[in-house]
Each structure stands twice: as structure tokens, then as C-alpha cells.
């Protein structure tokens, strides 16, 4: 993985920079001991590591702004970090960067059931947002698999999804407003507990900008009343194609389950060996979950059963009680752990049109054979968000490179099928150099112009998202290398 050469002038000024940070933050909020900064050298894409210059853990928006002002003045890159669970290297530092972690900003600031929102500090974990309101019968809908650990800040940066977004949407569809600090240290409020702020939808472009436009310190999130109940069915099939056709038929029939999850044979076998969920011996299976009252669920599941039976399922298993529901979800929820026990793996998340599922699954299998690596598939089928897991052995020289090369080919296949490189994990460093597969130079230029406006010196998470070659001029000279800056925004402070 190519990363920019760290700026020598920044490395040389480490002591002065750390001293300036210490002057505006409490002493326990600045970490520069190399033994301690090591904890921040990577995120969940742990194959790539680099310890930062320093780490700051501010407790307030004002402290975040103070840090950003100093870093801008010193020309120091800043890597915002939520909980460090990115699978794409979105929070991987560079040696000349300050990691700005939000782990100490976790408070609930306001709960308003009448207006259906919660306002939280952005370091709060996803699941603990729901935990704060579920006693009153409410929940926050986006549910990435890492929800126990991942922070709202990172969810906003990556526009995270989850298993239930077929019905409830992803982060951007549930985000009403943010308190946001620009690279220059200016605090800006975008949106709020009302709909469709006037003017350009800056909130919409900040969400999913991978920490490159500013640092979100607070968020106003839409909350929803919990449904009366939910119940899954498990349907086994003799072939991936049949499972794919069944998904399309369910959607076309006008039923909108909250989740349709897909697992292929390699994944089923791995999870059976891991947790013995009692899944059928078959090529592919679907877990379909419906919500509502018992009567409403029965109505939906009745229709799904009718559709599934037309596809000669190997098995159709309805959960009759909570324990059976738990067992149906057990294998799916253990899938990543099961694969982890088999070896190292890379998890991709290219998204494809649902209609292309069978063709893309065949293509992935063929590529796996070509590269001599095993690929298991477990994914959100309703929205076409694939999760191919490429198994490899990091201790065998050359295997990681081969796995990464296979990953790149699989993502190209997704794009060729009409899809995209990443459905919910983000680009980070992992898919940065593949962006040209999906976008033209003009498309990328349009995106980079947005960063020019929010972060003229290109100091925020600088070596992510865009191919290094495409952003080289901007990173070297700031946005001024592009068009003339607007004096109102870029003028002296």
C-alpha cells in the first residue's frame, strides 16, 4: 500500500506541535509516547499499520476546534477516528499525522420523543444510542455488524448501513443534523431537528465524506418506535441462482421484509463447524425477517412461503418462538467469527443490482479458482450489498498480496455488473486506487472540488478515498493548485 512520504518538517517539529496541543487540552488528552500511540496505528483493516505523530482525545467541540486550528497552522495532517472499526483503513494514520479520537465524547445531550430525535456526542457507540431509548420503546435504525463497538462519528463518516436498511435506510437517511468543525477550526451547525434545511444539502455531502471535510462532534439522529415484533424464516436452496431468483420474486411481489440475508455453501459450512446452528446442507440459504404484530408477520410469511415453494427449496423453516428465531440468526451473526477461525480474511462490500446476483456469484467463484483462494459469501441480498470473504494465510509470503489482487478483481466485477466498489464500508485506503474503475477523471475532480472548499490545505485524512496520483497536486499545494479560492472562506483568520 503506497502512502505519501511523511512531511519531514512536521516530524522535526513534533515536540513543538505536541506542546501546543498540550497547551489547549487537559494533560490526559494528548498522547505522544510511541508505546501508547501504537494502539492507534491501525483500525480493523489491521494488515496496514502506521503509528501517528500523536493522538488527541478531546472532550468538547471547543477542544476539537482548538486542535484543528493548531494543526492547520502547523500544516499537520489530521486523521479523525471514531472507534477504529473501519474495515477500509479509514482511520489509518500517517507518521506525520495527529489522530483526533472522539472516544471521550459519548454523552446523550437530548432525547425528544415528541419530535422523534436524539442528540448525542459523536463518539457514542451505535448500539448505546438505541440502549438509551429502548426502555421507552424506541430505537435507532442503522445497525452495522460492528454496532457494539463502532461510533456514530464513524457511521456518519462512512455512511454506514446494516442488515435492516432495506426498510430503514442507511445513516444518511436517519441523520437530521450535525455539529461539525471544519479543518480551519470553525464550528458549523448543519441541519437540525427539522426537515430539508434551506440551500445546498451540505449535511448530505458531509455524511459519507470519510472524515475528509471536517470533524462531526454532535449528531441529531432520527429515532423510531420499535415494531411490535419480528420473526425470521430460513429457506435453503439447491443453487445460488435459485436463491437469487427467489429474492427478486419476493421483492416483486410487493413484500418488503426488513432483512434478506444470503449465505453460500462455503459460508454455511464454516458457520456450522463454528457454532452448529443447525443449518440445512445446501448450496445457498436465505434468512428473511418480517416485522409487525403476530398476525401481520403471519400474513407476510405466508406470501413468502408461497413464493419460496415455487423455487423447490431444500428447506423452509419458520421460527415459531424466540429461541428458534435466535437459532436462525445464530449462524449468520457468527459468520465473520467462523471465517476468522479458518484463517485470515479480507471482507469486501461491493454492491450490485439484485438481478445480477447469480452471474456475479459465478464470476466470484471462477476468480477464486483462478487465484487459488477460497471465497465465502454472506450478504444483504435485498439491496445487493455483497460481502465476499477472501480467505488467506498472512504467514505465507505473497498470500496477502494475492488476496488483495483477487479482491480488486471481484470489485471490478461488481462495477462491471452495474454496481459499485463499496456499499457500506467506505473507500478508505483499501479501495482508493480502484476509484478510477467506477469514476471518470471528471467525476473524481467534481468530488475533490468539495474537499477543496471544506479543507483547502488538504490536511484532513488526506491520503484516503482518491487515488494518490489524482490528489497528488492538491496534497502537495493545497486547494490553491486548483481554482482560485474564495476569499470569504479562505481568507486570513
Amino acid at each position, binding site marked *: 500500500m503506497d502512502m505519501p512520504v511523511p512531511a519531514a518538517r512536521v516530524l522535526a517539529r513534533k515536540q513543538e506541535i505536541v506542546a501546543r496541543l498540550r497547551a489547549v487540552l487537559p494533560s490526559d488528552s494528548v498522547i505522544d509516547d510511541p508505546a501508547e500511540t501504537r494502539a492507534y496505528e491501525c483500525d480493523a483493516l489491521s494488515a496496514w499499520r502506521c503509528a501517528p505523530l500523536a493522538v488527541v482525545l478531546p472532550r468538547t467541540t471547543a477542544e476539537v476546534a482548538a486542535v484543528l486550528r493548531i494543526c492547520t497552522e502547523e500544516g499537520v495532517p489530521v486523521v479523525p477516528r471514531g472507534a477504529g472499526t473501519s474495515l477500509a483503513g479509514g482511520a489509518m494514520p500517517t507518521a506525520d499525522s495527529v489522530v483526533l479520537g472522539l472516544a471521550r465524547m459519548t454523552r446523550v445531550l437530548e432525547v425528544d420523543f*415528541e*419530535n*422523534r430525535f436524539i442528540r448525542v456526542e459523536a463518539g457514542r457507540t451505535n448500539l448505546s444510542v438505541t440502549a438509551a431509548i429502548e426502555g421507552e420503546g424506541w430505537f435507532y435504525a442503522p445497525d452495522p455488524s460492528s454496532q457494539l463497538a463502532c461510533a456514530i462519528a464513524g457511521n456518519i463518516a*462512512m455512511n454506514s448501513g446494516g442488515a435492516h*436498511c432495506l426498510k430503514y*435506510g*442507511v445513516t*444518511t437517511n436517519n441523520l437530521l443534523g450535525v455539529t461539525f468543525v471544519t479543518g480551519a477550526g470553525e464550528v*458549523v451547525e*448543519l441541519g*437540525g*431537528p*427539522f*426537515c*430539508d*434545511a*434551506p*440551500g*445546498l*444539502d*451540505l449535511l448530505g*455531502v458531509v455524511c459519507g465524506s470519510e472524515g475528509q471535510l471536517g470533524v462531526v462532534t454532535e449528531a441529531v439522529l432520527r429515532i423510531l*418506535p420499535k415494531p*411490535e415484533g419480528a420473526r425470521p424464516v430460513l429457506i435453503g436452496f439447491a443453487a445460488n441462482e435459485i436463491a437469487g431468483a427467489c429474492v427478486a420474486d419476493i421483492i*416483486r*411481489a*410487493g413484500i*418488503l421484509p426488513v432483512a434478506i440475508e444470503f449465505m453460500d455453501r462455503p459460508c454455511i459450512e464454516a458457520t456450522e463447524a463454528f457454532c452448529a446452528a443447525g443449518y440445512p446442507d445446501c448450496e445457498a440459504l436465505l434468512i428473511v425477517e418480517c416485522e*409487525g*404484530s403476530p398476525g*401481520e408477520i403471519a*400474513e407476510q410469511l405466508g406470501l413468502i412461503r408461497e413464493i419460496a415453494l415455487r423455487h423447490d427449496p431444500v428447506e423452509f423453516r419458520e421460527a415459531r418462538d424466540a429461541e428458534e428465531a435466535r437459532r436462525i440468526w445464530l449462524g449468520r451473526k457468527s459468520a465473520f467469527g467462523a471465517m476468522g477461525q479458518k484463517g485470515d480474511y479480507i471482507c469486501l462490500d461491493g*454492491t*450490485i*443490482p*439484485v438481478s445480477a446476483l447469480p452471474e456475479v456469484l459465478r464470476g466470484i467463484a471462477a476468480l477464486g479458482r483462478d487465484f487459488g483462494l477460497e471465497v465465502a459469501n454472506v450478504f444483504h441480498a435485498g*439491496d*445487493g*450489498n455483497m460481502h465476499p470473504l477472501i480467505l488467506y494465510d498472512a504467514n505465507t509470503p505473497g498470500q496477502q498480496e494475492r488476496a488483495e489482487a483477487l479482491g480488486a478483481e471481484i470489485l471490478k466485477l461488481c462495477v462491471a455488473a*452495474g*454496481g*459499485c466498489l*463499496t*456499499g*457500506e*464500508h*467506505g*473507500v478508505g485506503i483499501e479501495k482508493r486506487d480502484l*476509484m478510477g474503475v*467506477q469514476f471518470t477523471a*471528471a*467525476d473524481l475532480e*467534481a*468530488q475533490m*472540488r*468539495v474537499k477543496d*472548499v471544506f479543507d483547502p490545505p488538504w490536511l484532513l485524512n488526506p491520503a484516503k478515498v482518491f487515488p494518490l496520483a489524482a490528489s497528488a497536486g492538491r496534497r502537495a499545494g493545497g486547494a490553491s493548485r486548483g*481554482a482560485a479560492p474564495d476569499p470569504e*472562506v*479562505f481568507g486570513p483568520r
Partner: protein
Amino acid sequence: MRVESEAELVEAVRGARAPLRVVGGGTRGEVGAGERLEVAISGVRLYEPGALTLIAGAGTPLSEIEAVVAAEGQRLPFEPPRWGALLGLAGESTIGGVAAANVSGPRRVQAGACRDSLIGLRFVDGAGIAVQAGGRVMKNVTGYDLVKLLAGSRGRLGVLSEVAFKLLPAAPAQATVRAEVPLSEAGRVLAAALASPFDVSGAGWLPGQGAVLRLEGLEGSVGYRAGRLAALLAPWGARIEREGSVAIWRDLAEVRPFHGRAGDIWRFSVKPSEAAAIAARLDGEVVLDWGGGLIWALLPEGTDARAQAAPYTGHATCLRGRAPRAEPEAPAVAALSRALQARFDPRGILDPERAG
């Protein structure tokens, strides 16, 4: 000028020497000087019912899109409303106009805004360069979300040439639960309904009707939820309407109580709990949508509605009247927006309001 392809649009923008006034169907009350540029890039490019996705030229009439997807039992989730009759404008809404204005109907409370269903688009920026943003899949975090930035931008950053939408199955059944309460009570009724687990897909208040709550879905489910919701709202005398349901939501989406009436037309997007107090301060008639989060107001000509309604958490839009159309933004936000405009439209030809 009228363009029928993206290539023609590129030529028109590159050749422009003066500000352009970009028009779809001309039904949203857009104003401004500048040369009229009508985007007539029309036709459905791709429709995959099994994948719930549709791609169409930006100038495709909204009615054509709705007919195509209705034939497969599907619909645009956000229920795009028509305002032509409300504003006394004769045109036919286009799908690109809907996206550029980010207009959403009553189902916004359940299915989100237009921008939440917009999964991809193509546009031509102010320098005449064609750009693709997003794609045709409903989960896509590849690069910045320029789709959101362009949605609702009213052509200020670029002219839309193509749009891609996520669709939803059309509900086979619907019912409305109606409670004849005065406006002052409406907020409490709507909030109680939206806090219930009954998946309300519309929540408004109409003069002469009272508070209305819509339930959609499979027949059995609608019947069940309507019964439960009516029971929940029994203290306000709620009743179930079956026959009249469709008409109620058309009336609300199109704001029919204001049709053919003189006066200024305003929209307030606010925190729902503030709606009743704001409405009480306004010297005119109101209709509520989005659980009270949207207040439609018909006010005497020349009313300074923002001053009259204050204080409120949100913003007001003057759709018909002499007042400035949009609420002024906070200085820091306005500066960022202006800098984006300067980057996407360096010659300043896509903002006739500023140019004029």
C-alpha cells in the same frame, strides 16, 4: 433553448454567455432572470422491477414515470407532490425537476425525502462538464455523496441530465384514521400516532377534516393497524376512513384547500412540536403535513411571514409572494455554499437569482 440530450446540454452550457434559467416542467414557482434553458432529455433508460430501480432522463414527465412503475405494482417512495394547480402554473412536472427541487409528499414521514430515494444522477456543471454521481444500487458509499449535494440544489451547481431512483412496492391497501380535532390539538394527535408501532405513512391536519393518519400495506395488516390506531386515538374521537382515504392524501399532497385562492403561499419546515404555536401566530389559513413538521400557510399578500411566525426551529420558504424565497443561512454555512457554487459554476451562469 431546449435540449434533448446530454450532449446538447453540454453544448448549451458551454456556449452560454449569460445566466441561464434552467426549467423542467416549470411547476415549482422558480423565479429569476436569465435565458430559459428547458431540459427535455426524456425517456426511461432502465427499469428493473426485481431490483427496485429506475433510471430516466431528467426531462421525463413525472406522470410517465409513475405510469411505468405503477404497471409493475411499484412507486416512487416519497410520493412526489404536484404544485402546479396550487401555484397557478400550467406545466407538467418532470422527474429531474422533482430531484432538483427535492420535493417530497406526505409519505416523507415514513419513506424519507426525494433525496433519500435518489441513488444516482448525471449533471453538467457550470463549465459544461458532464459528471456522474452515485449509481444504480441502493447502497453505495463509493466517494462523496454528490447526489445529495445536487438534490435540492435547484440547478445551482449543475443541470441534471439523468436521475436514478430506488422504488418501493406500491401498497395494495390503505386506510386513514381521522380525528376531528382543532389545529391546537393536532400536534398531540399526530405525535401520539407517530410514536406508535403502527408504521404511519402520512400524518397531517386539514381544515374541515382534522388530523389524518394514513396506514398502508397488505390488506390484513392495514385493517389491524387502523383498528389499533383508532383505539389509541379514541380520546380524540378517531374514526377509520376507507373510501375517502386516497382523496384525503391527494388533497394534502397538492394542498387543495389553497387552490384558486389569492394570497402568498409559504412552507415552514419546523420542529413538529412547535407547529401549533407557529400556526396560531400566523394571520391566515394553515395545513399541516409531516406530523406537523411542515406547515403550509396561505397569508395576505405581502405578509412578512418569517417575522410573524418567529420564533421557530427550522426555516420558511416563500413559494408565492414578494418575500425572499429561502431562509437566509448562517454566515458560515452560506460561505461554504457560495464557495461550492464558485467551484462548480466558476462563470456564475447557473444562479439567475443572484445574477438578476
